[in-house]
């Protein structure tokens, strides 16, 4: 016969090795966790898009003629890619850069201030997410000509 234990806390799921398919859909990350994994994803995204970034630098700066090609890619598309497609990639880069920059500044601030309390981790993570997504929305609206 087992005796009931009313004082025991509610049993929570325990994760050791996370299984991508079985665990990730139900795995709830705290805000600081989201900032952390998005820092990695945004960095990897910018690494993958490095040729596009240098292509933009190249065409926008080399000559008047190439600058016209650069503008045309954003206004009329390029080859089979429509203008909206190029703008979407640029928007992804804008988000990746903003998130990576702000999350990085948060790291630097923590390193300098030794601010590693649980509360500061949470509040600064929310500020990071809010700022990067907000600025991305503002710049994205400009990119797609909403104002």
């Amino acid at each position, binding site marked *: 016969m087992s005796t009931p234990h009313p004082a025991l806390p509610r049993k929570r799921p325990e994760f050791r090795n996370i299984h991508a398919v079985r665990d990730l859909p139900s795995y709830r990350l705290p805000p600081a966790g989201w900032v952390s994994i998005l820092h990695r994803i945004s960095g990897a995204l910018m690494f993958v898009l490095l040729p596009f970034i*240098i292509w933009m630098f190249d065409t926008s700066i*080399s000559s008047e003629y190439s600058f016209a090609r650069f503008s045309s890619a954003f206004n009329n598309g390029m080859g089979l890619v429509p203008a909206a497609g190029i703008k979407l990639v640029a928007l992804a880069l804008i988000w990746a850069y903003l998130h990576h*920059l702000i999350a990085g500044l948060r790291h630097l601030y923590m390193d300098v201030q030794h601010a590693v309390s649980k509360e500061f981790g949470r509040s600064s993570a929310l500020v990071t997410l809010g700022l990067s997504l907000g600025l991305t929305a503002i710049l994205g609206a400009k990119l797609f000509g909403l104002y």
Partner: protein
Amino acid sequence: MSVNFGSKRIVVGAHYGLRDWLAQRVTATLMALFTAVVLLQVLLVRGPIGYAAWAGIFVPQWMKSLTFAVIVALTYHVWVGMRDIWMDYIKPLGLRLSLQVATIVWLVACAGWSIQVLWRV
């Protein structure tokens, strides 16, 4: 866990010290300052930004030198970050070493291209 120090260190591991941790922060600070410098000059342009105003930002020698330093810093920063990703997710040593070598070749090639573009202005 098996021994992975001394002569048994794995060849594709981190450098087991402060160097890359510090380098990541120093290069990040330089790139953040560069962002501020470029942004400030873009905001100072009056009216729509055409080719002359945009390319003009990179004409002075000090801006070329700063941008060059940033390209080098970026290359090192991306190397440290991508190596962390390979170390976390890719376990077979041969595959990890191949990806790390490919990353270095790719990054150096991209750095060369950007430096070429920079001195075209």
